[in-house]
């Protein structure tokens, strides 16, 4: 079984935010929810790098671990999904997430955040809805994965900076790139998310 991962090649990311737009459009996410975002480090300074970040679908996902109602779980492909019917909107997953991935429809005073929303790897939801159904789409967004497709953000990336797919294959792709061009600022977030890094 393939272990699905994301890898952002920061030396290729041009901060165009196409991944963000692709995600919003594909999943019809509500206003204020950002399943994917681009953060620029050292903005305007030498060594500036932009990194596209969303849920990394961690190994031993801390969000799933801290969830008081255990509504977050990994699939057999390593994709971290959650059941919105059971989510109580406590906000703990956001405190535990190393990547700021969990989103909430409301600001959240007095615990009124609403149901957590996050990147599903375009693999639909973790609830009881039938895969690919309209109910699933309304709650969680697209289920491209069920159709054998990869997440829209990576597919739309204009510079092929954002890679999605089998972790071993995208790591290999990245390593080959680094070898060929002679540099690379690393696979951002991998050691934290997967307890392992790319070779170069």
């Amino acid at each position, binding site marked *: 079984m393939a272990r699905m991962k994301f890898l952002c090649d920061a030396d290729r990311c041009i901060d165009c935010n196409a991944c963000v737009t692709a995600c919003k459009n594909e999943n019809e996410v509500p206003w204020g929810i950002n399943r994917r975002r681009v953060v620029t480090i050292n903005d305007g300074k030498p060594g500036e790098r932009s990194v596209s970040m969303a849920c990394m679908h961690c190994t031993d996902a801390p969000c799933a671990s801290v969830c008081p*109602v255990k509504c977050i779980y990994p699939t057999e492909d390593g994709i971290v999904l959650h059941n919105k019917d059971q989510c109580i909107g406590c906000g703990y997953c956001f405190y535990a997430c190393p990547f700021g991935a969990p989103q909430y429809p409301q600001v959240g005073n007095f615990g009124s955040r609403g149901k957590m929303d996050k990147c599903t790897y375009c693999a639909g939801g973790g609830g009881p809805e039938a895969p690919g159904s309209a109910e699933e789409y309304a709650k969680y967004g697209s289920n491209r994965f069920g159709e054998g497709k990869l997440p829209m953000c990576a597919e739309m990336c204009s510079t092929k900076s954002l890679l999605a797919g089998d972790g071993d294959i995208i790591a290999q792709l990245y390593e080959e790139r680094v070898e060929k061009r002679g540099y690379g600022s690393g696979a951002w*977030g991998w050691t934290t998310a997967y307890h392992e890094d790319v070779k170069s």
Partner: protein
Amino acid sequence: MTAFARIRTAALLLMLFGLTAAPALAQKLGPDGAPNPTASVTNQKTLLERAPRIQGRIDIPDVKASVLMQPMGRTWDYFHEVLLHWGGAAVIVGTVAILALAYLVMGRLRIEAGRSGQTIVRFKAFERFAHWLTAVSFVLLGLTGLNITFGKILLRPLVGPDLFSDISEIAKYVHNFTSFAFVTGLALITVLFFRDNIFRRVDIDWVKQGGGFIKSKHAPAGRFNLGEKMVYWLSVGAGIAVSASGFVLLFPFYGTNIADMQIAQVAHAIIAVLFIALILGHIYIGTLGMEGAFEAMGTGEVDINWAREHHDRWLAEKLEAEGRRASATPAE
């Protein structure tokens, strides 16, 4: 010096500066001869060695989204799922075990002289209201709070994931809104009982006499003995700390960042667990552990013999103020 000469000198100086500074700024070249763009790049490893979080600029007006990475999330997860589960269970189960042991060894502390049948007012109606407002809200907060930490281990297997989710959502709102009743009660208690909980010389005597646990000795006390004073001060301290950290959690990311929120949760959890242990002891001594104690907060009136055995100085003052004498049993 003409303007032109001045420019020429400046240009020369700049070139000299450029020559000396060049080695430091020199870019490494890649295998294809092009400048290596990562020569000046700070990768995540160096960034994380410098600060616990990697933060940058983001296009959306959401400051917390500008944090690219915070590996501390995994540390917080470890606290919440390992340290808090084991530590919290140890403290609470340990407290219950100690109290059970105390009950088995000492049994119920009886009124040695028996009941006199005469009572005296210990807590006025408003004082009892303040106590029970705090007490009821504390129990609600304690149970709903423990549910967030231990519910998935203890309750979820019993009621099933869907019903447990419904219960937990209600529990969350009960917890968040009962907090206001608790803070009100805590403020009232703090003010109402402040004067009588100031430490006095008699407290030292109380300790010397074994705090009432040695049957042959009499431990003198005013309205509150040292044990009760400790409960008061620890409750006020823990109450303020737990309320302050709780309000940070009620209004997430208002002037706080992700690390502040994690620290607030850690503080809230640790103080709450210790607070529960303290109050378990308080509940034990006020109900099962001592005959005649519950009435003080129940009806507000205590038996005169109970008052003599546990709060002799207070009783004396009280009787003097009321201008009456205790006639049921003679003093020692």
